């Protein structure tokens, strides 16, 4: 299933020459171009990609690594699947450009186990690229050597977190690491490593192909370019859409023909749940940030049931190493059960919301820092439905 709408970036002209163009530039120039374009990570956290690459480029080490994060585990996200399936070349070129930019020789695509059916296709594609001298030694006669390996995940959402991903690659349990040191200094096997989302790499290739200026004209200030969103839930036309940053929820809903929406969960299970009154808010790093997931719930849906599903997800998918996340999510889930049974006092609810805030502050990695989001947002935005009238 390809991207649903007429795309802005992905299908404009040919990006086939991106790699060739990149290899004629100096690594610093690529990094500068990406910085100028203001590209921010598409995986969720939105860290400026150029800055990340610059840090990795300036790190001194005898080896460096590029990791493409294709672990796409956030509920409601499936745009990376589409990219890997339909825009393979763009993604692979993006990874190669990233490798050239930081002067790495090796890249690893960490593909989630659920997408194993893409594995063979990708391997074949890589082989083709090698035959065409677009991977391997002396790529396109530029003197640059680079190759890409694919490693499969084994079913753990937390392995999408970059340091947990690296732990997993090193053969450990997918438990997030302490930061600092950051992967750009001490990453895979202790070497400087950039970890980027599939879409980030694809966007980087587009920027090299079309130029930073072109890219900056799309989107809004501070959130340049477009975003792939995966839309699911109660709408007539779910799927992956490419939208410019700054689009409002209302416009999104119109696009996918969702007429009855009462709530939209932006950013997946770990994102925010927005009520109708806030549908004029915009998708952007400054307002509603998302790794790509938009889930629509219509008037017939029980928000508490949805919340319960999310919290069950986190209780299972937390890596379990740090106390706020391991026990905290369980307590939030138990709280949902109490509410269901009509046994949760107002005081206890507030205590749980405060607990959620502490988890956001004190958890070790992004999972525990964001897992209270649905709890807090659903219980604040839908308090009447979920709590008071139950």
């Amino acid at each position, binding site marked *: 299933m390809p991207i649903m709408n007429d795309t802005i970036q992905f299908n404009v002209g040919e990006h086939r020459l991106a790699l060739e163009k990149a290899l004629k530039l100096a690594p610093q120039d690529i990094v500068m171009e990406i910085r100028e374009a203001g590209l921010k990570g598409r995986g969720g956290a939105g860290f400026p990609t150029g800055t990340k690459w610059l840090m990795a480029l300036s790190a001194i080490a005898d080896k460096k690594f590029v990791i493409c994060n294709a672990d796409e585990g956030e509920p409601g996200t499936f745009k990376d699947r589409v990219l890997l399936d339909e825009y393979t070349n763009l993604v692979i070129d993006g990874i190669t450009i990233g490798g050239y930019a930081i002067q790495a020789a090796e890249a690893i695509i960490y593909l989630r186990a659920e997408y194993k059916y893409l594995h063979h296709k990708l391997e074949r594609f890589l082989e083709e690229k090698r035959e065409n001298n677009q991977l391997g030694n002396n790529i396109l006669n530029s003197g640059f050597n680079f190759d890409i390996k694919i490693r499969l995940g084994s079913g753990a959402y937390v392995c999408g977190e970059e340091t947990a991903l690296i732990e997993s690659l090193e053969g450990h349990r997918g438990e997030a690491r302490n930061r600092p040191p950051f992967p750009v200094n001490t990453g895979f096997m202790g070497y400087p490593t950039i970890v980027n989302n599939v879409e980030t790499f694809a966007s980087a290739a587009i920027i090299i192909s079309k130029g930073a200026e072109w890219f900056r004209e799309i989107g809004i200030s501070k959130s340049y370019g477009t975003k792939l969103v995966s839309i699911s839930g109660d709408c007539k036309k779910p799927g992956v859409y490419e939208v410019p940053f700054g689009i409002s929820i209302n416009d999104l809903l119109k696009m996918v023909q969702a007429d009855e929406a009462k709530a939209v969960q932006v950013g997946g299970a770990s994102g925010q749940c927005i009520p109708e009154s806030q549908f004029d808010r915009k998708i952007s790093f400054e307002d509603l940030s998302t790794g790509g997931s938009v889930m629509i719930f219509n008037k017939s849906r029980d928000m508490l049931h949805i919340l319960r599903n999310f919290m069950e997800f986190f*209780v299972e998918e937390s890596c*379990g190493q740090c106390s*706020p996340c391991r026990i905290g999510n369980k307590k939030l889930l138990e709280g949902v059960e109490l509410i269901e049974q009509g046994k949760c006092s107002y005081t206890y609810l507030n205590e749980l919301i405060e607990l959620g805030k502490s988890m956001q502050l004190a*958890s070790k990695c992004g999972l525990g820092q964001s897992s209270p989001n649905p709890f807090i947002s659903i219980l604040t935005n839908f308090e009447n439905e979920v709590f008071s009238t139950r």
Partner: protein
Amino acid sequence: MIKDKLSRTPVSQQPLVVHKEEQGGIGSLVEVEINNRKIQVQMGTTILEACKENNIHIPTLCYHEDLCLAGLCRICVVEIEGMRTLQASCTYPITNKLKIQTSSEKVRKARRHILDLLLSEHYGECYVCHRNGNCELQSLAKEYGVDGFKFGHITERRHSVDRSSYSVIRDMDKCVLCKRCVRTCIDLQEVGVLEATHRGYDTTISTFYDKPLADVICINCGQCINRCPTAALKANDPSDEIWVAIDDPKKHVVIQTAPSPRASIGEEFGLPAGHSMTKQLNTALRWIGFDKVFDTNFTADLTIMEEGTELLNRLKKKIVEGDNSIKLPQFTSCSPGWVKYIEHFYPDYLDYLSSCKSPQQMFGALIKTFYAQENNIAPEDIVTVALMPCSAKKFECNRPEMHSSGFKDVDYGLTTREMAQMIKEAGIYLPDLDGSGFDDPFGDASGAGLIFGATGGVMEAALRTVYEIVTGREVPFENLEITPCRGFEGVRQASVKLEGTLPEWNFLEGVDLNFMIAHGTANAKKVMEALVRGELENIHFIEIMACPGGCIGGGGQPIPTSPEIRKKRAEAIYNEDRGLELRKSHNNPHIKYIYEKFLIDGPCGHISHKLLHTHYVKRGKFIA
């Protein structure tokens, strides 16, 4: 020397490497502001260290000085200006100017929440817990004035208690998942029995397939117990049975006390580390009701005689008789954790181990034979207790081969902690007591036996004797203090030149007696790997202790432990040795007496082989 293997510690938990280009690099100073106070610290210092240096208290739970960093309990979080989330101070290295708040509202709330969460999952009540009063979770609860369970309290067990091991009992319902035991077992000791398993809320510390500890390759060193902040791990306590024996008028209950517990038991009574309590302890033991109090150092002296003779015999057979089946270097065998380690991990190298029993087991065998005969007591009426710094000794005394007297040679191994508990239960405050000596016929032993307690001690004691046997002169070290044996370096190596040998030992003239010392099984592994690679050809004698620091850091010693505490305990032992008149095993008159009266065919003779030597089991690594 032995090359360090690349550390197994995950990269993220290793000390931060600050590159030269980054702001002056390591060694330069950075100014930070902690709680609005400007402070200069070394580049790379963690926030926690910086706070400690400046007397700012930060609570910790998963942090332990001996272990690599984990940063997972999150109780030590602090607020750094400009950062969205709180940061774990134990892992955060200071590399630039930071503004830190260690007890802002956010910080206090978060800590309190974390504590409430941990307490809600912590099964049981404090007053029915052996760590009551010495529990880090309890202290935190006190520190934060917790007076109720905000998020409920678990009322049913999620796990069953594993009592399978003679040495270590695991109660995972008390576990806070700080992973100190995991880091101890995998990183510090490299035994690898415990690891976090499953994930999410189901995460548990467990053994391979959650098998009973007795069935996996646990070496019983008990280092995990020493580092557990709560009561999840404890030693298998036989004190109830010992009370029964004491209360039974038909039983003749004798106790032998090892050197290390004396150097540390004061800590259990609130004294700072490094107070030797030998004489007071003797009195307390008599008050409690032990019929005789013996000094394990006596058999430590005996071990030196036997083990030293064994070494000389091996050297003679190898050098003079050219017998190549003789294995050198000879390894010490008094640490039962180490013995089980080599049985599991290097079963093909058991011939390198000295066949001598540990002092504890030698004593047991002598009490139920020699002592029983001399005093006309039926051995079956004797109950022997061994006060040890060690949890592995509990396993050792239960080994089936330890029945040389025809009875179970040592009935109970008791740790320092359990002994302190018994003393308290008897209503005794140890530091108040007057001192008293040891009982005959074994009497007071030499300082050589005493220093067995610290890493390098066995080697030093052995050298004092071996050198003198071979040359007829004292070891050429000032005040008999063989300094290369001392210290806490993980693996040490040194040599003593044998010159002016007596005629009988002429073949050793001019030979450098090369020896090595290692403590902690991770270091033992380094030595063994070198042996396997064939790099230890010219080494003669190797002392290995399973526990970091040697017996003074044993798994039965008072909690907490730290490098500082172990150093103090070792000093206490060395000081006591320095003050003794008798400092060489072979000069101990009681030793001479026993060789004249009982072990009449001398060290390594027939009788001693029957009573004082043992054999080992090829256990291997396979977990059935």
